């Protein structure tokens, strides 16, 4: 089980998937020029590392893409977890999704990069538009969708058999989108995740040896290494202590310059701190969405007000 080495299928796969998605993107009149970035070779990414992840540099990077959900419904077998949601996630903004446990917010974001369908018996209906491209269109390669829309999970889960370096390099290697200098890609991703200074001298050590907060930033670096347009975060701080949480939140603020961020959180203060816009969900339905300040101070729906003031949930 070597890390390197790629069979002939690798190149086949690349040739198969990319033009297909490209055709789809080109055929759709509503596609903005940046949506075709899905098919752009990873080597053309502007990934020159900045000395300390200075915000000024991040701004040069290609911007994130917007996502809009149109009548999205998600099922586990016959159980409907998301019941027809229309919601827009604006490009280069942080949108938080809040709501009580079991309201379907995790299921909702798992539909965006089509991870929902990995669960046996699970399926989704409706449309998820990445700019003008419906990621559920039959001609769309699910693998390409996930390269464009990264995901950070609740529990930090670096690959246990891999070193810190290999964990970050896993994306480019697993997707065979490795172009140019892998070391530079890894360094750039680690810098963007604010982890470079802590691990630069021990890149060969196992990723599982880091602290919980470092592991989660390693996972963020791992998802950044494939240069996604959108990053979905499913309660990324719920397993972390307050200091590690703060670091992740600062990171989110920097990352939104280059990607669109959707974050599911149970922590309403966190939503208030990091999100530009906040959406409140209840029983699989969207109750209200708007600028974060408005949701927390002048909610339009009484249920939102009850939730954000702690009357239930």
């Amino acid at each position, binding site marked *: *089980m070597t890390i390197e080495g790629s069979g002939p299928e690798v190149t086949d796969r690349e040739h198969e998937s990319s033009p297909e998605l490209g055709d789809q993107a080109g055929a759709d009149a509503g596609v903005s020029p940046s949506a075709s970035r899905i098919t752009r070779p990873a080597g053309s990414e502007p990934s020159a590392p900045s000395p300390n992840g200075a915000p000024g540099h991040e701004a040069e990077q290609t911007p994130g893409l917007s996502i809009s959900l149109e009548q999205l419904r998600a099922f586990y077998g016959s159980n409907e977890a998301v019941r027809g949601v229309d919601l827009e996630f604006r490009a280069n903004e942080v949108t938080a999704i809040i709501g009580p446990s079991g309201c379907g917010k995790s299921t909702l974001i798992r539909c965006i990069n089509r991870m929902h369908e990995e669960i046996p018996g699970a399926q989704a209906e409706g449309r998820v538009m990445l700019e003008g491209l419906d990621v559920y269109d039959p001609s769309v390669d699910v*693998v390409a969708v996930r390269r464009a829309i990264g*995901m950070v*999970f609740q529990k930090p889960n670096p690959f246990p*058999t891999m070193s810190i370096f290999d964990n970050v390099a*896993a*994306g480019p290697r697993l997707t065979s989108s490795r172009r140019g200098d892998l070391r530079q890609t890894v360094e750039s991703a680690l810098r963007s995740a604010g982890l470079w200074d802590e691990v630069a001298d021990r890149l060969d050590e196992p990723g599982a040896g880091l602290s919980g907060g470092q592991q989660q930033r390693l996972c963020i670096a791992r998802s950044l290494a*494939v240069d996604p347009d959108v990053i979905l975060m499913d309660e990324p701080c719920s397993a972390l202590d307050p200091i590690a949480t703060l670091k992740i939140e600062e990171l989110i603020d920097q990352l939104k310059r280059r990607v669109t961020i959707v974050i599911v959180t149970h922590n309403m203060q966190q939503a208030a701190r990091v999100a530009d816009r906040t959406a409140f969900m209840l029983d699989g339905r969207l109750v209200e969405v708007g600028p974060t300040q408005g949701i927390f101070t002048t909610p339009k729906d009484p249920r939102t007000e009850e939730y954000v003031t702690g009357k239930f949930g």
Partner: protein
Amino acid sequence: MSAHGASAQPLSRFAVSPERRRRDALARTAILGATILALIPLVLIVYYLLHKGLGSWSTSFFTTDPTGDTFFKNSNIGGIKSAILGTLEIVAIASAMAIPVGICVAIWLVEYGRGSRFASIVRFAVDVLTGVPSIVFGLFIYIVLVVGTGSTYAGYKGSCALALLMLPVVIRSAEVILLLVPSGLRESALALGAPRWRVIFRVVLPTALPGMVTGVLLAVARAGGETAPLLFTAGATLKTNFDLGQFMNSLPVQIYSDVTSPTTSVEHRAWGAALALVSIILLLNVVARLASRRSRLG
């Protein structure tokens, strides 16, 4: 609790009653006793193996074939070379057949067939096969490959019988280990945009490798020690033979025939052969563990 006030009352609430102490001591003794009881046969086996087996070990023991001349006290009975080489060959061929197929079945069951009806049928069939006595596999091969082809015993037929025997063990152990790989690892690899086959080869299998090695070794060890399926598939012979189409000797069969001999020196050879069999499996274990540890770091 309140530190001041009537002191006797609160303290007695926290004291362990003598009755509880007694029961605790009793339970601990019982558990320790059962452990020691289980260790007794294990220690005795190792003791007798070394005590009786080492005595018959010599250079010629490993470099000569059994002569078959066992009637006189002073006759040269020969060594176990053909048996060692035969076992290594038969088990190696059996492993080459059963391990790749078994791991593929386990991967299909866990990564692709999960929840499907066919998967539960396969799982049930594997469970049934695990419980089938080894002699039945031998019988099956005997009927199909020996009687069925109208030919005689052969090394490869023994391998086929052992492969059938190993298959369910390999599948079951590999499946259990694959299920232990956290689904979060699969998900985060898939979420990076990795195709499923790469997730399996680069993330799932490397994570599962050390555990899989253990399970596979169990299967190999079990096959290596089997006598019944070999008796009427590979047969028994004296000469070293590298032709898998011919009769082939093996350690378990050699031990079986030596133990039933009335000659003391031949009976001692059985102990020596048994010690050799155990040593081979132990060696295999150590080597495979070292190999899997190294590949994990690479």
